[in-house]
């Protein structure tokens, strides 16, 4: 690559040793963005389904009794979960940054941080679901109300996305100790990061539209 050509490329592009493409964007990154665009539509349908049923059925009826949803939700726990997921986005961004700087040790540390934060979020969600289902007076299950059905499908699908992300991150963490782990993998880690941040932005929408809105 000539000096003039190299000067026109961003630092990311010069360091990744990717084969040139027509778009100038690595194929893996383009594919991930296309997938995320399609996932927007997927979560769009789930969120709209929940909101439509809340609009049509303002009352939540469980076993014949009308139940205020604020008696079921624990906003403090959900707020803490939100904070944890936001922090995981920071550590993921720092992981990608460390990979671009070829600092494997720092990347590994931040990667581990992201895994821990993601696992804490998932643990908090499992705890939340358990307490909703085993609520003393108003148990909320997948089948005993329309609200339960749409709520669990939406937040559960998001939880599955988080779980897939954690497994993906764990595989990178283990692979980072291998001598086969090369500079070229910086792009792959960045693609994983895109997925992880997407999971975060979906929660950024779910938190106010599903939880906070119930308190107004």
């Amino acid at each position, binding site marked *: 690559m000539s000096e003039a050509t190299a000067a026109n490329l961003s630092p990311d592009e010069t360091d990744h040793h990717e084969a040139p493409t027509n778009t100038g964007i690595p194929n893996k990154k383009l594919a991930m963005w296309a997938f995320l665009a*399609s996932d927007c539509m997927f979560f769009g349908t789930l969120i709209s389904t929940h909101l439509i049923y809340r609009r049509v059925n303002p009352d939540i009826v469980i076993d014949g009794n009308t139940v205020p949803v604020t008696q079921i939700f624990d906003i403090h726990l959900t707020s803490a979960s939100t904070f944890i997921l936001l922090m995981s986005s920071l550590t993921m961004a720092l992981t*990608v940054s460390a990979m*671009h700087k*070829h600092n494997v040790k720092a990347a590994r540390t931040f990667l581990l941080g992201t895994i821990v934060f993601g696992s804490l979020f998932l643990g908090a969600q499992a705890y939340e679901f358990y307490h909703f289902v085993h609520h003393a007076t108003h148990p909320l299950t997948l089948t005993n109300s329309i609200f339960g059905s749409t709520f669990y499908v939406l937040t559960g699908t998001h939880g599955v996305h988080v779980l897939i992300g954690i497994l993906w991150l764990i595989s990178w963490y283990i692979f980072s*100790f291998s*001598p086969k782990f090369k500079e070229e993998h910086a792009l792959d880690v960045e693609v994983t990061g895109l997925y992880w941040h997407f999971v975060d932005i979906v929660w*950024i929408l779910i938190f106010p539209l599903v939880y906070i809105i119930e308190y*107004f």
Partner: protein
Amino acid sequence: MSENHSQPSFSPASASTLDSESARYFTFFNVILALIAMTFIELVMIVLPFHKYVLLAMLLILSLIKFVLVIWYFMHLRWDRLLLTALFIAGLIIGTGTAVALYFLFPEGDGAPGAEVSLVERPTI
């Protein structure tokens, strides 16, 4: 020597990469502080004595700002090519448009106590 063979070995990054990534490092911390502050404001809004629709509008605006901050900075759209932004926005517009259209297509329930209305059983117009 044996340790070198069992651990990944990366060449030093270029000076320009180190400079640009160091600048981003501080940007990331500013972004996360803004995200946490806005999440805190969302929580405080629960107790604010404003009209429901004012609070809803504020909530949507805050969520939108948080959303944009994450995709713009954490997901690197600020530094990537415009095609990626266009691709993602296209999916976002279709998803959001469908959601909003469906939301306003269905009428608001009457809130009759003890009654859950099924969309399937509802008479078509």
